[in-house]
């Protein structure tokens, strides 16, 4: 039995055996896998989980929302059960330290944890003090503290931030600072809970490759929970997929893709979906892998069954073209009408300048934006963190006063901000939306059946729809929607299945005549719903055009399929599969 708080060099970074856990006050509705017949019915967040992570491994934790990923990470850093309470069975050890006996403070010497929301994981005023805090708590002398802070800041490329206050940092910078604070004690294991969910594609990719570099150079084991698998699958050594609190799959990334194809297509990456629709094997774990497979496919003219190395050789299994064509027809991303009618204008912005207070000085956040959106259009507003997307939406909604330019919004506007929970202040859906107009708004989002429900009991997607109904209520004439419906980063922390529901909701709103503008970092989501993409960069419009054109013409703001095929106008797996099959035939 290892000592309570002494890490062992030879021990695996993380060893979990038969872990079953229930949060305090959880519903007593479902039975754990290990409970004896006739035992109590209890809702378990984790059910009989066994997992071993070797030193120096980078593992990806996949699964739908609420499948137990975050709980597993909390158990590995000691927050479960020491901080959250609840009932727990089984064993968890981190670098040989028994996590069920040692608290999170003791474990912090060997494990670092980075949560989803960077804003709630900083506790100091300046970046340097935040990074130094874990060492200070351990009584490290100032000299070694200063050295450790300097080294971790250099490793994460943030030495220029050390003297800044945390409230002046962007989301991406804050995420790096949180990672630095987790790494400064040189832990054996780092746990990250959806670290890229609030980052733009550039910052997200940078973070993943930074983790890979730390993993390779420092030998840190990494367990990374993510929904956007296409971003990190190529960097992972291994994938652990969870379902309803249990481990459903544990193996190599390429095997995971094959498993997801059969078990849960919501976990497929766009690249894997492209290959599976086009009937190409093996499925690719990333863009580089996909290009290599496609190149070798062309070289061998398609693998043939019976060859000795069939498992490693790409194989064409052409799916019926009709299938891809059918999927193509379902895809809402189509070219927009190039001749908008003047009557159909939903919002018109001319030479818009917005200045916001940035501490000591004011900063031009929007610089001469021109934008016109017509009724029925589905527009994705994209750009890196701080490009001005949210400010543009807030200006359209009248929350921000422009310093120059004209803003016209005809027929009203409903804006759903980044946190739908901010709209929900009462304990009954019907109390939030009273009367006939409230009911009409609930009908638009498909929640008319939930009048008596408590908003807190609704699922994440339902809460978002309820918040949208609250924004719409009274802005509709009869059943007619306002001219413009805008959503700001609606897919944060969403799994692919919920994103698909949102795509359908957006399609429904646009189908009823509203212009829908969505500010998003999620290129795959943008490709799924948008017909037009407006790309902002530092307050100016960089590009404005058809989604297929914009999302296939770059590197960061391009879908995985576009990056694999590099063909103009091909952004979705369905479009790509159709092209590949046509070439094959």
């Amino acid at each position, binding site marked *: 039995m290892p000592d309570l708080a002494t890490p062992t060099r030879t021990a695996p970074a993380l060893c979990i055996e038969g872990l079953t856990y229930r949060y305090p006050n959880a519903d007593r509705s479902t039975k754990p896998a290990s409970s004896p017949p006739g035992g109590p019915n209890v809702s378990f967040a984790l059910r009989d989980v066994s997992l071993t992570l070797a030193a120096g491994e980078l593992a990806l934790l996949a699964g739908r929302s609420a499948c137990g990923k975050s709980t597993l990470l909390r158990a590995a*850093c000691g*927050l479960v059960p*020491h*901080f959250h309470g609840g009932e727990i069975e089984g064993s968890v050890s981190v670098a040989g330290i028994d996590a069920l006996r040692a608290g*999170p*403070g*003791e474990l912090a010497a060997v494990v670092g*944890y980075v*949560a989803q929301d960077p*804003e*709630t*994981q*900083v*506790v*100091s*005023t*300046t970046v340097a*003090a935040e990074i130094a*805090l*874990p060492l200070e*708590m*351990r*009584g*490290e*002398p*100032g*000299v070694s*503290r*200063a050295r450790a802070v300097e080294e971790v800041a250099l490793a994460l490329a943030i030495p220029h931030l050390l*003297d*800044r*206050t945390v*409230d002046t940092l962007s989301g991406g910078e804050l995420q790096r600072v949180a990672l630095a*604070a987790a790494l400064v004690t040189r832990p054996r294991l780092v746990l990250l809970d959806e670290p890229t969910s609030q980052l733009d594609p550039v910052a997200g990719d940078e973070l993943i490759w930074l983790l890979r570099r730390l993993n390779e150079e420092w030998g840190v084991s990494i367990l990374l929970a993510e929904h956007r698998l296409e971003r990190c699958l190529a960097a992972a050594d291994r994938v652990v997929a969870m379902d309803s609190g249990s481990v459903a799959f544990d193996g190599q990334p390429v095997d995971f893709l094959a498993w997801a194809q059969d078990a849960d297509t919501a976990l497929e990456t766009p690249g894997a979906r492209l290959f599976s629709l086009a009937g190409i094997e093996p499925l690719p774990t990333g863009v580089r892998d996909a290009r290599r497979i496609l190149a070798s496919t062309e070289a061998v003219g398609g693998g043939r069954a019976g060859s000795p190395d069939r498992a490693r050789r790409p194989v064409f299994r052409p799916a019926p073209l009709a299938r891809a064509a059918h999927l193509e027809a379902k895809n809402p991303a189509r070219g927009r009408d190039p001749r908008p009618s003047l009557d159909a204008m939903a919002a018109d912005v001319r030479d818009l300048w917005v200045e*916001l*207070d*940035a*501490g*000591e000085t004011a900063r031009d956040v929007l610089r001469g934006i021109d934008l016109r959106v017509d009724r029925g259009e589905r527009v994705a507003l994209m750009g890196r963190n701080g490009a001005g997307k949210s400010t543009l939406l807030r200006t359209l*909604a*009248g*929350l921000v006063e422009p310093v120059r330019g004209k803003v016209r919004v005809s027929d009203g506007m409903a804006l759903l*901000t980044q946190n739908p*929970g*901010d*709209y929900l*202040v*009462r304990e009954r859906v019907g109390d*939030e939306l*009273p*009367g006939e*107009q*409230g009911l009409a*708004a609930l009908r638009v989002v498909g929640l008319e059946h939930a009048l008596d429900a408590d908003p807190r009991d609704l699922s994440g997607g339902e809460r978002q729809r309820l918040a949208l109904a*609250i*924004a*719409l*209520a*009274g*802005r509709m004439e009869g059943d007619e929607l306002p001219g413009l419906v805008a959503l700001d980063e609606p897919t944060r922390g969403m799994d692919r299945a919920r994103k698909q529901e949102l795509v359908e909701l957006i399609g429904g709103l646009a189908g009823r005549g509203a212009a829908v503008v969505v500010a998003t970092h999620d290129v795959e989501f943008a490709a799924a719903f948008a017909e037009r993409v407006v790309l902002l960069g530092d307050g100016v419009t960089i590009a404005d055009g058809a989604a297929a054109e914009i999302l296939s013409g770059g590197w960061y703001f391009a879908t995985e399929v576009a990056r694999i095929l590099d063909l103009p106008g091909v952004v979705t797996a369905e479009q790509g599969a159709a092209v590949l099959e046509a070439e094959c035939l």
Partner: protein
Amino acid sequence: MRSPFAYTPRAGPLQAASPAAAVAYLGSLTVVAFLYSNPLVLAATGIAAALAGRLAGADRAVRAAIKLGLAIAVPIVVVNALVVSRGETVLARLGEWPLFGQVDVTAEAIADGCVFGLRAVVVMIAFAVYSACVDPDRVLRALRPIAGRSALTATLISRLVPVAAADAGRLRDAGRLRGPAAAPLGRAALARRLLAGSLDRAVDVASTLELRGYGLDAPRPDCAGCADCAQRSRFDARFYGIGTALLTAAIGAKLLGADAFSAYPTVQVGVATSTLAVSAVVVVAGLGPLARRRRPRRNPARAIRGSEAARA
């Protein structure tokens, strides 16, 4: 939008000084403001605090403190004028008021209220300069070994106050974005939602503190090698010195009668030499954060080349 009172790291003597030295310096100005009622000395203290803020680069904080201080000072003057009927110079007889009785507004009561208000403004400026220039992390670090629980509470508050302010701003925006037919937000609902959100935030921050090892009974760092203790600022002596000198001068001058002021029955403001002298000393103390600008050293080789070129 950042609060004007939020700490902003800048290069300057006041920011570089240890928290204790900064507190000694700004605290001495506050003590003078409470020690004196003479408007001349109070005004001098206000000028000194504002000057200190200006030299430390905290203009925004000073401006905001003056606005906030005036917002507090004006009601003080009004209430004092209505409540106190002493003084010989009656400006207005407002008759019998419920609760107040006979209300006579006198010039003396207004002058007395102005002194109270001026003191509030001065103290507000000194606190604003402290808030904008003294790193709260260093203050907490200094406090932790002495009072761990108080430091923890202060850490939570110092983090949660700006987060709660941001949450309140977001909730207000969401309230404005509610459709006209949605139930109105209402102050009670907003307050309840904000409280619930703050509790969630507090749990998140507490779990982060737990993960950083706040619950550990860590040994105090060895002060021999401790950067914070070993690298005391070279400006500490300056601020301790100014604070001590200021307090000594202020107390000595007060004993010599420099605080001559009485509002009733008629306003009498003493302008003795000692009053003028202490006022001058106080204003000069405001120059404490003045940074000495060094001339950039010239590279001797380049200087020689430059002079040769000039000769040529």
